[in-house]
């Protein structure tokens, strides 16, 4: 262990010397963010390394328009909302789903399969599935759409806001003033998409992309690997999580997603519209498409709250630089979504980010 930590320190030092400045590594995924904080890595690494928390939590990047629309549907008597737990607390412009749960038609789902069950049990209601998440949760949504199609289920409607990681990385890198030197890529997502998915990023932008699992030692290895590539000016795709992540990923999952969804331009809270970044149901499945069937009008809109989530997600500021951090915005009363999910950058900073003081 000590050996691996020392290796990381050595590579970080090499990288800072090679670049002649601080190294900025973005962990795309919120699970990494939390794991880094929890293991105390943020304080343990030398000053020359800066870790940026990226947009890797589906809750954090869900915009007001989407939440508002879900709330509108929740207010309708003919609908039952099926959602994953974290979503119920995300504030839209008119509050959050949690504030409407007393009506009893908002059901927290533990898995996509339960949504199908809910639809069968409530034939007289329209079941609206709040389908969020990255490549990791999209296959499960695709499976239930497929099954609903085969079983001729008529009352299931998917309101898809599934997002893709690669277009987001691209968008971050095309920001002119981005300060990202490399990406620590998420284990879960990469199990599905495969490490080769990052190849175009490395080729086009010359930024190292290293896949790591969520164990602290893997994160340390990943950071060492990134710094080595930076020091040697040899950016590449690699994985320190080889047992779980293959080059090509999970073909079965990819296939079912391809069968059910098309990539479309989509809105990301804080980041704006990103081309080909959101999964929408194919025309073949349009009878399950909430947006087409339920007469809803989802207007994405820039956040009006003064929340600086966008800058946090791009790695431009740390959460404490937002004026609302810990004053108006806390996990009990989140203003922006980054404070809602336990993996949101602001929530992680709130919980773990306080610097320690010295012993007497």
């Amino acid at each position, binding site marked *: *262990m000590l050996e691996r*930590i020392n290796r990381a320190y050595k590579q970080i030092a090499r990288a800072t010397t090679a670049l002649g400045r601080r190294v900025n590594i973005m962990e795309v995924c*919120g*699970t990494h963010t*939390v794991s880094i*904080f*929890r*293991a*105390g*890595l*943020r*304080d*343990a690494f030398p000053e020359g390394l800066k870790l940026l928390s990226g947009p890797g*939590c*589906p*809750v954090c990047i869900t915009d007001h328009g989407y939440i508002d629309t879900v709330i509108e549907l929740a207010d309708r008597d003919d609908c039952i909302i099926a959602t*994953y*737990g*974290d*979503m*119920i*607390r995300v504030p839209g412009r008119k509050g959050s789903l949690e504030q409407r749960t007393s009506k009893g038609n908002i059901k927290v789902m*533990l*898995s996509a399969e*339960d949504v199908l069950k809910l639809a069968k049990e409530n034939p007289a209601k329209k079941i609206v599935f709040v389908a*969020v*998440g*990255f490549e*990791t*949760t999209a296959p499960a949504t695709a499976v239930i759409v497929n099954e609903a199609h085969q079983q001729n289920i008529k009352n299931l409607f998917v309101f898809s806001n599934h997002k893709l990681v690669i277009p987001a990385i691209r968008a971050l890198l095309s920001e002119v003033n981005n300060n990202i030197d490399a990406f620590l890529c998420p284990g*879960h997502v990469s199990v599905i998409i495969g490490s080769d998915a990052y190849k175009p990023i490395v080729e086009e932008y010359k930024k190292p992309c290293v896949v790591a699992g*969520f164990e*602290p*030692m893997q994160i*340390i290895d990943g950071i060492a690997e990134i710094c080595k590539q930076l020091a040697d000016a040899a950016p590449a795709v690699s994985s320190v999580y080889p047992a779980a992540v293959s080059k090509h990923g999970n073909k079965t999952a990819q296939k079912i997603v391809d069968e059910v969804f098309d990539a479309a331009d989509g809105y990301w809270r804080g980041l704006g519209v990103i081309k080909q970044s959101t999964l929408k149901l194919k025309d073949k499945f349009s009878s399950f498409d909430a947006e087409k069937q339920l007469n809803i009008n989802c207007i994405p809109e820039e956040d009006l709250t003064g929340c600086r989530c966008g800058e946090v997600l791009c790695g431009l500021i740390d959460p404490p630089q937002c004026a609302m951090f810990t004053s108006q915005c*806390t*996990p*009990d009363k989140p203003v922006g979504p980054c404070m809602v*999910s*336990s*993996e949101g950058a602001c929530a992680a900073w*709130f*919980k*773990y980010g*306080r*610097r*320690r*003081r*010295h*012993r*007497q």
Partner: protein
Amino acid sequence: MSGEKILLAHGGGGRMTDELIRNVILSAFGNSTLNKLTDSAELQTNQNNICFTTDGFVVKPLFFNGGDIGKLSICGTINDLAVSGAKPIALSMSLIIEEGFEIEVLRQIMNSVAKTIKEENVKIVCGDTKVVEAGAADKLFITTSGIGLKLPKAKMGFERISAGDKIIVSGTLGDHGMTIMSHREGMKFETEIQSDCGSVAEICEKIIDSLGENIKFMRDPTRGGLAATLNEISNQTNYGIEIDENTIPVHPSTRAAADMLGFDILDIANEGKVVIVISAERADECLQICKQCKNGKDAAIIGQVIKTDEPIVELITKIGARRIVQMPSGRELPRIC
């Protein structure tokens, strides 16, 4: 009575109430005091101070791996007394039952209560039963109160804690919270994790008997977990606390579940554990006593009280780094993926 359901009439105070109480409750754990069904129980005590506590239990699901709402409601109250340095002697139990609840299920829960109080050598001496309309409560709520006699050697309090004192936990952390959570999440390793729902009375009594005022403070880390307990100690005493992740006992299945759902073990509820602050010189002895007790075999010394310029709890992580352990805030929700 198999197949029978709780009806509103079971709460009406008439014959059906009487039958329910006699057939389901008294038959499970009646005793000469309770059987009188008087309005209040008369108890005889000696010179000791009396400790008194009460708690409501609304756990979902009612049955979980390692326990059920009945056992939980007894152990919870016993533990509140035990960590205050009192020997539990008598409990009360109040039931709020939703109309339609299966009597057979109630019977199972009452049998579990009976088993637990027998093991713990306490009596339920008074109680109350209410039935509410369907929808007005979620199946079954239990409130238990308890009184205990303060052990003469118990001298505990925040003010007795000082720098250098050691922190002991009586076993693996997070088991109850993760059992309940993974049950709700429908996770596969559900069966491998077991709630620690149980009593710490034996541990508390034995260590106080042997170590007296060397035991500075005890608390059962229920909601908010170890993180909340240690933060409270730190805040109340103005000392810092330093704990070492490598020494904190955690069951591997509980750890796996917590990792999967994105929870921090230190924040997770326990229902059969005690956190002990003990003077450094006697810490090893205390640990040995814990280990000999039925519910203390995994006990460990996990850290110490230190002087810092600010009352904070710090964790030395597995990889040797340090981070602050905050008071848990808000309701924790499992992550999406």
